[in-house]
């Protein structure tokens, strides 16, 4: 008896074709490898795991219903991320906790300069330090403290490693705007993390002053 011939993995185009014919298994096969990045995109807006999960579920259902509207000229992952971000924004707007926290933030445009607040001499912090829980927590707190419009750009560019043009397409911004927001986000992250750069990761201690000779 001969061994069964292994079936080749269906291509994305084949899965899309089947999904457009209401094949849910094929659609899930397209979504499943992207779950983590969709969740991260929703977290960028909502900053809460339960809400982010709801937003991803709503986005995936919506994408399945509107799959006939998907055009092959854009990447499927880009399209799905756009829908997820939109769902996350809708959820944020509906959420009473953010009733007075407008996403549009018309009062603070991107035009003005951002000046660094802290000029501490930054020592090299090796990535191995990330095994320390306090550094991880400080990073997460700093990301959470960013305004959503900066946080989403930072996560797409520096965590998910998308290009400037992909990020611009997903967020509906110009590449120039993406660059401005990324600069703000990175400088604000640096300022937010500066109190820990003496190695203690606890702000306000006397040691903190040692790295500021001026």
């Amino acid at each position, binding site marked *: 008896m001969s061994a069964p011939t292994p079936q080749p993995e269906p291509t994305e185009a084949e899965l899309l074709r089947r999904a457009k014919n209401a094949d*849910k298994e094929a*659609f*899930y096969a397209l*979504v*499943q490898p992207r*779950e*983590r990045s969709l*969740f*991260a995109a929703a*977290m960028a807006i909502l900053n809460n*795991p*339960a809400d*982010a*999960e709801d937003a*991803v*579920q709503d986005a*995936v*259902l919506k994408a*399945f219903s509107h799959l006939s509207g998907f055009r092959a000229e854009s990447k499927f992952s880009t399209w799905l991320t756009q829908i997820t971000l939109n769902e996350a924004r809708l959820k944020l707007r509906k959420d009473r906790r953010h009733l007075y926290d407008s996403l549009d933030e018309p009062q603070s445009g991107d035009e003005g*300069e*951002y*000046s*660094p607040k802290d*000029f*501490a*001499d*930054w020592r*090299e*912090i090796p*990535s191995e330090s*990330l095994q320390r829980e306090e*550094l*991880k927590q400080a*990073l*997460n707190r700093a*990301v959470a403290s960013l305004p959503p419009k900066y946080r989403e750009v*930072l*996560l797409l560019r*520096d*965590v998910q*490693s998308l290009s400037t043009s992909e990020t611009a397409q997903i967020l509906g911004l110009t590449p120039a705007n993406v*660059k401005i927001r*990324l*600069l703000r986000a*990175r*400088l604000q*992250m*640096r300022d937010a*993390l*500066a109190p820990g*750069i003496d190695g203690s990761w606890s702000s306000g201690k006397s040691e903190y002053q040692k790295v500021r000779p*001026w």
Partner: protein
Amino acid sequence: MSVLEISCVEVWREVSNYIDGEITLDLRTRIEAHCKACAHCTAILDGTKNVVRLIANGIQYDLPGGFSRRLYDKLKNK
């Protein structure tokens, strides 16, 4: 050859592009010449570079337990 000087504010404006390698050689040379004489801008540039690396390695959003199963069920029962 002398390098045209730039201000601290101009350096801050280009920090991100500098890190991403998206500036002209001329501007890179001017930023590096400025930083040799300016401890503040060196601190900003090095610190931001370090932050970008830490973010890439340190920010992870682990999927909540059962995430995939719940998503699959939701789609299946739609």
